[in-house]
C-alpha cells in the first residue's frame, strides 16, 4: 500500500473519481462519529452545520471558527430585545453542508454570510458556497456577504449586532450590494 503515489494520466480520472466517492462517504462518517461521540460523552456539536436558535429566526448569520462563539452571545442578547436571529456555524467546508443549508433556506428570510476571507474577483469563500447550495430551493432567502476580520482584526459583538440589524432590513427589501466590507477605514458606513 502506498499513500500519495504517482498516478499516470490514463488512471487519473479514475483516481479522482475514487477520491470523490471517499469524500461523499466522509459526510456520513462525520455524522456517524458525532453520534458515537454523543453516545459516549452525552453532548454533540452540530454535525457539519451547527444551528443555534435558527428554528424561528427571521435572519441567520453564517460564520465559522472562534467568531461564531461571539456571535452566539450576540444572538442571545438580541433575542432578549425581541429580535429573532440565529446562527449557523459551519464545521465542515468539505464536504460542504449543502443539504443542511437547503433545509435552512425554507425557514428564514435572510442569510448573512460572515467571511474572514475574500477571493479577489469574486466574493467571500463561504458566501459563494452558501448561495450555490440554495439555488435549487423553491424559496430562496436574501443572502448577503459581509467581509470582516481580515488579518486578525477584531470582530466585536457590536459589529456583529450591526450586521444582524442590517440583515433584518436587507431581508425585507433585498440587498443593494451583495458583498459589503465591514469596518474599513475611509468607507462611509460606521461599524464601531
Amino acid at each position, binding site marked *: 500500500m502506498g499513500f500519495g503515489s*504517482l498516478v499516470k494520466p490514463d488512471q487519473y480520472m479514475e483516481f479522482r473519481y475514487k477520491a470523490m466517492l471517499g469524500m461523499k462517504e466522509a459526510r456520513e462518517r462525520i455524522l456517524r462519529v458525532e453520534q458515537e461521540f454523543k453516545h459516549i460523552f452525552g453532548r454533540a456539536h452540530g454535525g457539519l452545520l451547527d444551528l443555534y436558535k435558527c428554528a424561528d429566526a427571521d435572519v441567520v448569520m453564517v460564520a465559522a471558527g472562534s467568531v461564531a462563539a461571539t456571535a452566539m452571545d450576540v444572538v442571545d442578547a438580541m433575542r432578549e430585545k425581541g429580535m429573532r436571529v440565529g446562527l449557523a456555524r459551519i464545521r465542515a467546508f468539505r464536504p460542504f453542508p449543502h443539504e443542511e443549508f437547503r433545509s435552512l433556506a425554507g425557514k428564514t428570510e435572510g442569510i448573512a454570510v460572515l467571511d474572514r476571507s475574500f477571493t479577489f474577483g469574486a466574493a467571500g469563500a463561504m458566501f459563494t458556497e452558501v448561495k450555490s447550495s440554495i439555488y435549487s430551493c423553491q424559496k430562496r432567502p436574501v443572502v448577503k456577504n459581509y467581509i470582516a476580520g481580515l488579518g486578525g482584526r477584531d470582530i466585536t459583538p457590536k459589529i456583529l449586532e450591526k450586521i444582524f440589524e442590517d440583515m433584518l432590513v436587507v431581508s425585507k427589501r433585498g440587498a443593494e450590494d451583495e458583498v459589503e466590507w465591514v469596518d474599513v477605514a475611509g468607507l462611509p458606513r460606521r461599524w464601531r
Partner: protein
Amino acid sequence: MTKTTIPVEEFTFPGSTGCPGCGANLVMRYMLKALGERTIVTIPACCWAVMPGYWPSNCLKVPLLYCAFEATGAAISGLRAALDVKGVEDVTVVGFAGDGGTVDIGLQALSGAAERRTDAIYVMYDNEAYMNTGIQRSGSTPWGAWTTTTPVGTSHGFKHESKKDIMAIMQAHKIPYAATVSPAFPEDFVKKIEKAKRTKGFKFIHALSPCPPGWRTNPSLSVEVARLAVDARVFPLYEIDEGKVHITRKGKGLPIVDYLKVQGRFQHLTEPEIDSMQKIVDDNWIMLLLKESSGT
C-alpha cells in the same frame, strides 16, 4: 555453497520501474531484508517515488508514505509520534531519500529530526545527482563529474565544487548511529541496518547507489562499480557508533583511476586532474584513519 547471513525473505517484488542495473533497487532490497515486514517507508520526490510503480501498483511488501521533497525528516517524525500515541513499538520508521532530497532540499527537516532524536532510520541512497529528473548536479555530486548542468566542453566544464560530507554533518548532530553501506558488500550492509534497527534514537545510513544512466556505466557493472568505490577508498565503509568511528572494510587501496575509468561521467578528466582527485581521496582516507585511532 557458502552460507550467507542475509535474510532469505524478499520484500521487493518484480515490477519496479527502476532502470536496468539500478543501485537503488539493491539498496531498498537489502534494507528491507534487514528490517523485515514491520516497517513503514517514507519516500520524498526521488527515483524511488516512481520506482514502486504507478498507482495502484506497489512492488514493495511494506506500506509507503510519499511526502514532499523537503519533508522526509518531518514525515518520519510525524509517523513516529503517531505510532507512539497508538502504542505501537515494533514498527521501524524509515525515511528513504536520494542525495538531492537529503543534502540539499531535505537538509533542514533532516537536521530537525536528528536534533529531536526521532526514533527512526534515515537512509540516503546516493546516486550523486538529481537522476530522476535528468542528471542535474546536486550537492552530493563529486568534484570532476559531468552532469547535464555541469556539461563538459564549455569554458567551465565539469563540476568544480566538492561533494558535501553528509556523514560529518550527521556526526556533528551527535546521533547514536551513522554508517556508510554499499550494495557491493551486502553482509556488511545488512549488519549495519540491523544494528541501526536495534539502536534507539536517530540513525543515519549513507548508501552509495550506482546509476548506469547518470554515471554512464554499463548496467551489468553496477555492483562492480560499487565495489571499486570501496576498494579505491572513494567511498570507505565505516560506522560512527555513539560518536566512535570504526572502519568496517579497509578496501584494497586501488588507484582512483580504476574507479573513474569505468564511468563515462569522468572520461574527460586529464591526468593532472585525476592526480588531484587521488590526493583528495588519500587525504580523506588519512583523516578517517586518524578519526578511528583517536576514537572520534
